[in-house]
């Protein structure tokens, strides 16, 4: 049995009322643990893309993928954990900040190529994008100044260099992948 690890799964799903509920219900019912979930519109009308980060060994994730594929409104599922993939999330972090700490925070923000998007008397909001580890590190560092609030989108992910074919007339969107 493999030890528990994080796996990234993406799914192309129909953009209909109740789809998210159907998917999250399946995860809940089968006792799978989602550590993050992100949904948004895809390149195709009426279809959304989801990225799940799931905790579990390879066997568990294999069963998760199979159960996702069983859902009628789920069109395509890819486990991209093993692949060369880009994964990013965005976080907004409200940090305690006064005149003495401001410049130090700004330096850290620079190192992380993050941005300060709001400043007030006692706080500022930092916007950062990156993979989960990068966001975690920044939050940890900023916590030395006092983090009031963290808002994260959850990871979105995409394989690198996968052949992608634009919409063919009349055939709808189609994703080409070497392995099904």
């Amino acid at each position, binding site marked *: 049995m493999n030890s528990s690890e994080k796996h990234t799964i993406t799914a192309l799903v*129909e953009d209909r009322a109740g789809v998210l509920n159907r998917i999250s219900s*399946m995860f809940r*019912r089968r006792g799978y643990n989602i550590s993050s979930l992100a949904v948004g519109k895809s390149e195709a009308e009426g279809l959304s893309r989801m990225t799940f980060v799931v905790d579990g060994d390879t*066997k568990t994730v294999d069963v998760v993928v199979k*159960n996702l594929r*069983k859902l*009628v409104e789920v069109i395509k599922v890819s486990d991209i954990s093993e692949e060369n993939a880009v994964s990013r999330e965005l976080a907004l972090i409200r940090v305690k900040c006064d005149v003495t700490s401001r410049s130090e925070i700004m330096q850290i923000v620079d190192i992380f190529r993050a941005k300060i998007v709001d400043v007030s008397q006692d706080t500022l909001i930092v916007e950062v994008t990156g993979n989960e580890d990068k966001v975690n590190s920044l939050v940890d560092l900023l916590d030395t100044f006092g983090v009031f609030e963290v808002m994260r989108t959850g990871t979105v992910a995409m394989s690198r260099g996968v052949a992608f074919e634009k919409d063919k007339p009349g055939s709808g969107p189609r994703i080409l992948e070497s392995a099904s």
Partner: protein
Amino acid sequence: MLKKGSQIVCESLLREGCDVVFGIPGGAILPLYQALPEYPELRHILTRHEQGASLAADGYARVTGRPGVAFATSGPGATNLVTGIASAQMDSVPLVIVTGQVNSWTIGSDAFQETDITGITLPVTKHNFLVMDAAEIASAIKEAFYIANSGRPGPVLVDIPRNVFVQEVEYEEPGEMNLPGYSPNFSGHSGQIKKAADLINESVKPVIIAGHGVIISKAYEELKVLAEKAQIPVITTLLGISCFPEDHVLWSGWPGMHGMAHSSFAIEESDLVIALGMRFDDRITGNPAKFATNSKKIHVDVDPSEIGKNISVEVPIVGDVKEVLGRLNQQVLPGTHTDWLKRIESLKEDHPSLDIPETTKLLARQVIKDLSDETRGNATIVTGVGQHQMWAAQHYRFKNPSTFLTSGGSGTMGYEVPAAMGAQVGNPESTVWSIAGDGGFQMTLCELATIAENRLPIKFAILNNNFLGMVRQWQEIFFDSSYVSTSYTGNPDFVRLAESYGIKGIRVTDKSQVKSAISEAMEHDGPVVVDFIVEQEENVYPMIPSGMTVYDMIEEPVSEKVTS
């Protein structure tokens, strides 16, 4: 042509070959009911409880192979269906359920009899729809039938608000289905089939475990060819019972918690398990880590998510059992396995599971044995859940495919009454015997009114021990005979109860009356309830306690055999 939503529902059902609907009307679904007189080809059977409707649809689906259809109104009507829907989902039975919903503009306002039935049934349906526009009814119902009865079958619910039933739209026949995310895989992988054939050809001690999938895909002939060609013993699962004739020399019983000892030991001793359309349920495997550790496994199933779920397998084949076996059989070489078959024979002699003790008492097992003899194994047997279910599976010798209807995965007590109704409606010529427990029978006996009303000639054998027998058995074995809440001291007089519905009632209290009561029931051309007052504390053996292994099996104690 302008048509109302209600008319479109009826026409869509007829187009899918539906001829019978089980259900009960109510406020939200009333417009659909009011359209029924226009469609006399659509027979409606008025059940007395919605659970009866969904379970009857289940029985109908199992004997016909076509989706069973049930109607119910919103709120409590719909929630009453849920037990039947969940049972069908567990046992892969195709149902199409149409529920009425409150008017679309009141959804979400906690309107009278509003319940989020698509939300409630999400985890217990294969799929469900909430149809908010009458123009979408025809395609939703077409898709519902397709999804329900393709791939691994299951229940599909279509929820329709009241105003959508009365909405008039320009009616068009539904076009091509738009289900880009649904592609049930039917064709097994050639390379995997070759690997399976190689394993079978090399195997010295193979066993087949044939499950419900064999019945669903009607792979009876293919199974027989495989078994006979390579001389492989055939064990079935509980739901696989009747997929292989039980008077066949290769038939080797069924295994697991209350299965036959020789079947469980044969699996344990085998070097190859050929699992066909089954899912390694915990009632079969016991402790999955210690299940059939000496064998390699071939697993054929149409549902990819079953592969590797409970048991790791060497050769998975995703595909329809009939199709896969058709191709596999061509590559399987004739075999004999004489020594192995002899070994199973000796296991059977050393561990007799079907011996009935000599006694003057009326044992439930004896009733089933006599029923099997009197009907020559040709009846359709419907059971509830519990001891009587296990005894029926053990002691009835089934000869014809798809004649054993039981709630396996879900273990739904009360299945025996409405499912028998569905089975009789689906196959009016068949002899349907419902083997019931006094506990389960009382959960759904309101359907006796439906049975009387429709003159369905179902024969009920109530094995009446005034106990929730299986639970009592667990209390006896695991809780030092502390019979908490399992004694049924307030049972009605089932004979007079039947008579109050205009149904013939017979009571049997003595062993000598069993056969004559069965033939008297068979000769009567209407429904009959036979109340067999059986031994109260008879136990089902063998028994492998939950989560244990075949080596923890409890066989019938000798003392019990002698004294009982």
